């Protein structure tokens, strides 16, 4: 007889089984999965929800926060019926109208983003199981964390204990994204609101995928475990000792970088080779080993590669420039591709002996190799970097000043560079100045440059304009040396216990999550400025991804960064970096845990109730100031379904759909009072679910305002109004014109602002309203009807 515990459950096989009553031949019993009978928490209504199980909840949100579609163009070109002109009230050949087409694009973006994180999680789980086994226990933070996977508990209704247990949730997430993606096929979904609901679903699946990825790597790779005092790590263009052989890792999925550190440790090479990273792999390699260093966010790729500082580049997956191999070849830097999702056209050399690959790279017989074995990546990367470094001698393609001046003199001022620049930077003017030997304008542009190098591509003279900027700004680049607290992972249960009450009552005025990419309209500084503004105001500021790096890239007069000045705990006035992109669910998880730990709500498969709780009570706001990617779209979508508003910077308007409330429509802002069943007007709190801020000043005012929730106590609302009014007066020069919508009774009015607020209330004909026990769900009303 064979009894086997597979990844799917229990399998019992018997060739011949003799019992008192019969002889059974070729018996095979398969049990799908083992149910956790020790979990006393009752299962909620939506375990492993299908794509329509939470549709009613989505519709409630979408009824209040209606989509405002912003099409790029008038057509659909997704099938051979098209192109179809969808302008006005036209429909395409398939019958779809413009609203549905735009929501379909939103869903596509969310599916791409979710698939990326979920596939990332799948790769990590497969890799870690293969290397360490299925039964490795999950550990987010030892005794400090009881709710190990709040998102997975909430969505799937399971309580994973080992790596093996994560696979059920991962299987579910993969299935959901496939269903969601299938709905975008021609002739499937026809309603824009249903597309939106599915986008929410993809975002929710994404949250599960990300949580699994980070939970697995934290548990197995020994990352900081919910540690408010996670180590400070070095960040900046100038932090590496580039006299040493230098390996640059770029991407998001850390195992190949771990292979490098492990090999260096094994060979006692730590300190002899520099390992630096860009983007989320950089976050995660510093979580693995704090002696690794971070160059910066994604926009730092070209400037670092062209500066010739890397003797070898290892790319894994996501947000990596597609021309990395070509750019690396220009500076004689070999490349190792290590992800099946990003093979760069290279031959798969995984099975070849390491020494052969090393010699091929060192002798420049190939520009790069593709290796899927992470240990082999480590060996080949380190040995190649050490052998190549003396030969390369940090060869770079950054031009000298004379070359820039000559180019400036030859520039025809055609403006093609400016017209290609996402931020309309005055490159032509800067080239005119360069012609006269003044490189300062080019250096100033680099400060606000997103590093896309579209100016290079557009220049009819083929001037490497981005490299000109790098040269002009190199003195500043070399001074870039900052300290960032590395990703701490989850929020401890004890931290939630301490702040859950003040957050829900409104006395901690809000949780601001500053996340996302680095597609900024005006450089890094805005992120740090916003983070500090809210930390000073005693909000809780949480960061992740590239935004977490940008927050570190400003120093005060004493040379300290925000992470050195503010505590790393989930507390009023804290600034805490949770980690990489896949760490974002720790932010959602904190909100979820407030409902569980503070309010004693059941989490298990109880999504709708908890989302309703968070939406009405937890004053959390996401800010993705430089959101660029489809992953950022799906991350935002996961927050929308939880009822958490998200603000994007101006480039985020190109996501092509906002979810906007209308504060002028009183009928949209009623909730049930769970105590009485009455419908109560609560004002536009929060006013929007997804919107764009045009400037950082507007973003700050929006954040303060979007932290208001119907459940705020009068003390809490008064504190929140103080911040909103104060920021509004500072940046807009006047009192806000909508205060009357947020004052429920006179106790809400900030004491120091009472006379001017009362005057406005009188002018607006304000009337006192009740503070309910708010819910959007009729079933949550506790009053019994006879």
């Amino acid at each position, binding site marked *: 007889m064979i009894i086997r515990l597979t990844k799917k459950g229990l399998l019992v096989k018997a060739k011949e089984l003799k019992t008192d009553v019969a002889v059974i031949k070729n018996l095979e019993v398969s049990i799908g999965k083992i149910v956790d009978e020790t979990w006393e928490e009752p299962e909620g209504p939506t375990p492993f929800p299908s794509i329509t199980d939470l549709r009613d909840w989505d519709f409630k949100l979408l009824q209040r926060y209606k989509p*405002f*579609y*912003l*099409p*790029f*163009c*008038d*057509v659909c070109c997704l099938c051979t019926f098209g192109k179809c*002109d*969808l*302008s*006005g009230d036209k429909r395409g050949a398939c019958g779809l109208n*413009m*609203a549905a087409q735009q929501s379909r694009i939103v869903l596509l973006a969310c599916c791409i983003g979710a698939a990326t994180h979920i596939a990332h999680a799948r790769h990590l789980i497969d890799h870690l199981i293969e290397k360490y086994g299925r039964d490795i226990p999950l550990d987010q933070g030892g005794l400090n964390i009881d709710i190990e996977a709040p998102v997975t508990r909430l969505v799937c209704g399971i309580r994973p204990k080992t790596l093996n247990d994560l696979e059920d949730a991962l299987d579910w997430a993969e299935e959901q994204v496939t269903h969601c993606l299938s709905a975008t096929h021609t002739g499937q979904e026809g309603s824009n609101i249903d597309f939106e609901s599915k986008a929410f679903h993809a975002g929710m699946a994404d949250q599960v995928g990300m949580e699994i990825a980070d939970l697995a790597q934290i548990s197995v790779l020994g990352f900081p475990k919910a540690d408010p005092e996670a180590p400070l790590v070095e960040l900046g263009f100038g932090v590496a000792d580039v006299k040493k052989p230098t390996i640059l890792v770029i991407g998001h999925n850390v195992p190949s970088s771990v292979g490098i550190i492990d090999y260096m440790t094994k060979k006692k090479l730590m300190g002899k080779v520099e390992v630096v990273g860009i983007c989320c792999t950089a976050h995660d390699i510093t979580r693995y080993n704090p002696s690794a260093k971070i160059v910066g966010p994604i926009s730092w790729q070209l400037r670092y590669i062209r500066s010739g500082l890397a003797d070898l580049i290892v790319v894994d997956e996501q947000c990596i420039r597609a021309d990395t191999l070509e750019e690396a070849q220009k500076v004689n830097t070999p490349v190792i591709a290590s992800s099946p999702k990003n093979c760069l056209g290279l031959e798969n050399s995984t099975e070849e002996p390491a020494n052969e690959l090393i010699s091929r790279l060192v002798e420049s017989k190939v520009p790069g190799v593709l290796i899927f074995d992470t240990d082999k990546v480590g060996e080949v990367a380190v040995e190649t970097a050490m052998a190549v470094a003396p030969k390369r001698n940090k060869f770079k393609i950054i031009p000298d000043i004379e070359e820039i001046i000559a180019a400036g003199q030859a520039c025809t001022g055609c403006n*093609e560079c400016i*017209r*290609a620049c*996402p931020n*309309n930077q005055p490159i032509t003017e800067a080239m005119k100045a360069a012609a006269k030997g003044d490189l300062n304008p080019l250096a100033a542009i680099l400060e606000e440059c997103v590093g896309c190098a579209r100016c290079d591509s*557009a220049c009819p003279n083929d001037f490497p304009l981005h490299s000109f900027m790098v040269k002009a700004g190199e003195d500043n680049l070399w001074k870039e040396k900052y300290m960032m607290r590395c990703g701490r992972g989850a929020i401890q249960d004890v931290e939630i216990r301490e702040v859950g009450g003040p957050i829900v009552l409104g006395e901690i005025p809000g949780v601001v999550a500053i996340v996302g990419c680095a597609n900024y*309209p005006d450089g890094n500084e805005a992120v740090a400025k916003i983070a500090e503004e809210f930390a000073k105001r005693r909000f809780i500021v949480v960061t992740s991804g590239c935004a977490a790096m940008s927050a570190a890239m400003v120093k005060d007069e004493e040379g300290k960064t925000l992470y050195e000045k503010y505590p790393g705990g989930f507390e009023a006035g804290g600034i805490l970096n949770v980690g990489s992109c896949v760490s974002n669910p720790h932010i959602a998880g904190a909100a979820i845990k407030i409902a569980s730990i503070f309010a004693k709500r059941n989490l298990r498969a109880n999504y709708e109730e908890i989302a309703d709780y968070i939406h009405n009570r937890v004053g959390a706001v996401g800010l993705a100031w430089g959101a660029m990617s489809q992953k950022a779209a799906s991350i935002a979508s996961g927050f929308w379904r939880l009822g958490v508003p998200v603000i994007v910077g*101006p*480039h985020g*308007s*190109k996501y*092509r759909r*906002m979810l*906007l409330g*209308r504060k*002028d429509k009183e009928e949209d802002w009623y909730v049930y009072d769970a105590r009485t069943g009455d419908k109560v007007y609560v004002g536009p709190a929060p006013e929007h679910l997804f*919107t*764009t*801020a*045009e*400037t950082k*000043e*507007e973003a700050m*005012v*929006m954040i303060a305002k979007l932290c208001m929730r119907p459940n705020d106590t009068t003390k809490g609302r008064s504190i929140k109004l103080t911040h909103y009014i104060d920021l509004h007066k500072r*940046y*807009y*020069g*006047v009192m806000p*014109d909508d205060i009357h919508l947020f004052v429920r009774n006179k106790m809400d009015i900030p004491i120091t602002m009472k006379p001017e607020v009362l005057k406005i209330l009188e002018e607006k004909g304000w009337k006192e309203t009740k503070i309910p026990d708010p819910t959007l769900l009729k079933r949550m009303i506790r009053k019994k009807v006879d």
Partner: protein
Amino acid sequence: MSAKAEPWQKAEIAGPQKALVIMKPEVVVAMIKRAKRPILIIGHLATKTDPENVKMIDYAIRLNKTTGIPVVATAHTAHEFVKQGFQPAASMSAMDIGNRLKDSNWNGLDGKGPYDLALFMGLPYYMEFVILSGLKHFSTNLKTISLNRYYNPHASWSFPNLKVEAWNQSFETIISKLGGN
């Protein structure tokens, strides 16, 4: 004045329906005169000084004083208006005003009915691009004019890509022909 109707940011291709090019500022004058309920949307870039030392916000104020067209200041633009002693009709986010203009049942800032002409100035190019597109597709009976100096193809009417002097001159002509100074 060049009439080449190419989007300023070259990849921002629109169509088939594209903005008509304002060849002469008199077109704007005629549109404003014909409009029953015009509105002017001013973004934060209008507060920046162009190389010839003119802020577009000054033109916005002069346009308002000449015609009485209500001004909506987006983002923190209101602060600059206030500093100049001017009170815009409203301060709201670009997305909010776009969303309301889209709604044919919105009765406007004064409750007197929907607007029929929205003039835009000072928003980031790409943000104005998508908002104008939203209005093109989802508003009814609303015409839009982009007053920035770059051709923005999702408007009903847009200036072409202009040099600063020509752009400034256009505003002077518009204000003067509307009876202002």
